[in-house]
């Protein structure tokens, strides 16, 4: 590993792998290391034995073959028209992966799980809202669909940069229960803070939901075959194809700084167990490599369960259920995900469910989500910290990512990647331009 690089990237989570791929395509010489002997860091997918090991439990062979399972450490779904899909396309990394739609998108209202209506037609038939409310909801969804930030005539006279979401909902005369599912199941906010902020972001988020849904039909979400852990591997492959050097199972001894306080290299152990120094101009890393330079912003409590039955009313092999905070008397939503053999992440006949929420207390917080699961074969709880870097990295040349948050999709993950890119390059990442062209043999 001795040598000189433009960038040393520490940790092979999705964010770091996307950055590594983009840097390599841009002609930068990249050394990418991970202390683990697998790809993905906190965004890996692990097999059943690794899951039991992680929680210090004895594997249960009755659940099936360990390697038939790919259990996500940071469960999320991909918005079909979201930023991660744009990143997959601009880098052509999409060719390494196959996806399937997530089959269902549900929301809890008045103790019942209902399909999320997201189009004018669906709004007309949903049992979520009453007869007169249906028309108001339809009008709102049509407004959202037509809204274009740059076309004032689509704004219907509302200035969404000043008007709050709450005010916009009042203009459409929407009831509280309807607002609940618009904000939480379409705009995917996990708390009600957005109500008092300008409405434009909420409308854009509803629009993204609608456009993502329109792409494939059943839900706005995609999910890769074999689990989310395939995503970092695919971007790592891109980096490697463009000359990036990969080293797994490589503990980092220390970061070396120059007299100006800028990171200029990394010391790690070589194959003979002797310290080896690799030089670089800057470092990109996940928070686990810089624990002293990060702070905890919130805690996430989650349950990972293995089941033998689907959990939604439609018995879909994959689905999301959102439990909006007001429906369960909390300050944050509870998210329930389910995936199964149909996405090659569980043995035939088995389902993996994830229940999570932002918490300050404990597993008690998940009770409404756990009720939905019914009987489980096996389950694990954990609480983990969401960490963010204290500094942007301009001074010490260490560009640190945030932890994977509790959100149900990859939009914030993509935002963080774009933020890291901007911190490094001093200009925003343009998602509309193609970075990698296919070569003539493909």
């Amino acid at each position, binding site marked *: 590993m001795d040598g000189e690089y433009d960038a040393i990237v520490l940790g092979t989570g999705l964010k770091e792998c996307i950055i590594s791929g983009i840097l390599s395509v841009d002609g930068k010489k990249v050394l990418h290391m991970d202390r683990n002997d*697998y*790809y993905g860091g906190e965004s890996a997918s692990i097999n059943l034995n690794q899951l039991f090991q992680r929680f210090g439990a004895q594997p249960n062979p009755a659940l099936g073959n360990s*390697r038939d399972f790919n259990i996500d450490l940071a469960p999320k779904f991909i918005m*079909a*028209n979201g930023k991660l*899909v*744009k990143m*997959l*396309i601009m880098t052509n990394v*999409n*060719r*390494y*992966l*196959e*996806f*399937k*739609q997530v*089959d269902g998108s549900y929301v809890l209202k008045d103790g019942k799980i209902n399909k999320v209506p997201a189009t004018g037609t669906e709004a007309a038939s949903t049992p979520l809202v009453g007869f007169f409310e249906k028309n108001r909801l339809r009008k709102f969804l049509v407004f959202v669909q037509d809204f274009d930030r740059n076309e004032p005539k689509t704004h219907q006279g509302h200035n969404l940069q000043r008007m709050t979401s709450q005010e916009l909902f009042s203009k459409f005369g929407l009831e509280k229960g309807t607002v609940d599912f618009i904000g939480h199941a379409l705009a995917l906010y996990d708390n009600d803070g957005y109500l008092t902020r300008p409405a434009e972001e909420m409308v854009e988020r509803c629009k993204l939901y609608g456009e993502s849904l*329109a*792409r*494939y*039909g*059943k839900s706005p979400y*995609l999910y890769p*075959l*074999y689990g989310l852990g*395939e995503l970092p*591997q*695919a971007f*790592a*492959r891109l980096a*490697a*194809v*463009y*000359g990036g*050097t*990969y*080293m*797994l*199972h*490589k503990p980092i001894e220390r970061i070396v700084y120059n007299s100006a306080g800028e990171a200029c290299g990394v010391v790690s152990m070589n194959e003979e167990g002797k310290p080896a120094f690799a030089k670089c101009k800057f470092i990109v890393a996940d928070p686990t490599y810089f624990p002293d330079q990060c702070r905890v912003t919130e805690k996430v409590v989650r349950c990972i369960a293995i089941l033998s039955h689907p959990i939604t009313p439609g018995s879909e*092999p994959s689905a999301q259920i959102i439990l909006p905070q007001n429906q369960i008397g909390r300050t944050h939503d509870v998210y329930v995900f389910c995936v199964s*053999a*149909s*996405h*090659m992440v569980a043995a035939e006949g088995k389902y993996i469910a994830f229940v999570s929420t932002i918490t300050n207390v404990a597993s008690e917080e998940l009770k409404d989500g756990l009720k939905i699961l019914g009987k489980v074969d096996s389950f694990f709880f954990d609480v983990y910290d969401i960490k963010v870097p204290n500094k942007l990295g301009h001074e010490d040349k260490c560009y640190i990512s945030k932890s994977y948050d509790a959100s149900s999709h990859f939009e914030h993950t993509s935002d963080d990647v774009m933020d890291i890119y901007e911190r490094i390059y001093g200009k925003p990442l343009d998602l509309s331009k193609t970075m990698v062209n296919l*070569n003539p*043999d*493909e």
Partner: protein
Amino acid sequence: MAAQNKSPLNFKLVLLGEGAVGKSSLVLRFVRGQFFDYQESTIGAAFLTQTVALNDTTVKFEIWDTAGQERYHSLAPMYYRGAAAAIVVYDITSTDSFARAKSWVRELQRQGNPNIVIALAGNKSDLASKRKVEPDEARQYAEENNIMFMETSAKTASNVNELFVQIARKLPKQQQQDKPSGSANIKVNEPKQDAKANNCSGSC
């Protein structure tokens, strides 16, 4: 019998083996008919396709090169995920590369698709004067492990096409439908296209 005009059967084929045994050279010889004495370590061309016409079918290989990720034992599991065939390459002038090839075969048998077709290729057969691995030794190993074996030379093109044709013959004559049930698999494409154009499986 009338020509069936069937679309080619697609198979993922991966290359494995130590650095500098000629993995990329074998692929470049097969796909482009080229050979360079000083081929650089693999950069930029790690996903090639080539079609092999057999009597009754056409087989299209999607060929994955390691992109150098094997160097520090950092090859991602996704690399051999779904691979229908693997060519494990060694250099006939290096016993170390042969030992490494054997460990790749074990790795594939442990981690790969259980029906994967494995071919062991002793490359650089043009360098007979520097030979360190006898063909009989490799052939015996291949027979014991129920895998194919051939000596090849990317430089002279000896046995290169033959290797791929032999593999193509061993592959199933129907596209494997071992993909999961339920909704179709999706390759994400340009967002500009309409939903219908994207909603296809396999062929896009």
